[in-house]
């Protein structure tokens, strides 16, 4: 039973560029959430997708957008990258309305 997978594992970008991160949920799960974890901090909720729609959003600017595909996988897009976007981006999957989220290994983004 495959867990949550994310790609790529590491990424280096420069300010102003755009980035796309990918996530495949745990088998059987239909809901994907994205979190940003800055160095030395706890994860911060970005948004959650279910049925290909954004269902809930945290306090992040519109530069952060997402997409969910019919196979439940998801992408996180960040436009106009800032140095402060450097972080570990975590994807979590769950069943809709389910209480427990399971996390992937994350993608570490460095913005120079």
């Amino acid at each position, binding site marked *: 039973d495959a867990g*949550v997978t994310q790609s790529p594992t590491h990424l280096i970008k420069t300010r102003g560029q755009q980035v796309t991160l990918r996530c495949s949920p745990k088998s059987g799960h239909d809901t994907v959430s994205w979190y940003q974890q800055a160095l030395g901090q*706890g994860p911060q909720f970005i948004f959650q997708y*279910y049925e290909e729609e954004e269902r809930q959003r945290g306090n992040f600017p519109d530069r952060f957008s997402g997409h969910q595909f019919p196979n439940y996988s998801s992408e996180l897009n960040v436009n106009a990258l800032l140095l402060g976007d450097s972080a570990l981006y975590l994807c*979590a999957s769950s069943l809709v*309305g389910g*209480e427990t*989220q399971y996390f*992937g*290994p994350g993608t570490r983004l460095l913005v120079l």
Partner: protein
Amino acid sequence: AQSVTQPDIHITVSEGASLELRCNYSYGATPYLFWYVQSPGQGLQLLLKYFSGDTLVQGIKGFEAEFKRSQSSFNLRKPSVHWSDAAEYFCAVGAWAGTASKLTFGTGTRLQVTL
């Protein structure tokens, strides 16, 4: 809005000693509470969760946590720490808006284990 406080940024214990990591939450309804562990450079692994019922919950790797509503706390404990327990520990509270949910995390407690 919900929030989580982990008062201890860094804790050092000797291998074989007992451990207690503190977590206090703020949430207007009955909370869904979680403890996750993160090894360096890794994602989050679920240790245990509390939804309802017995206030003492057992998790993986010998961890347990006790929910105390009167103190708004959900402290994590382990009777005897192993060197492999060294990691970052995060407490989280779950909140729902309809069927949509999100986790709010504390800032974490880094556990160091001395031999």
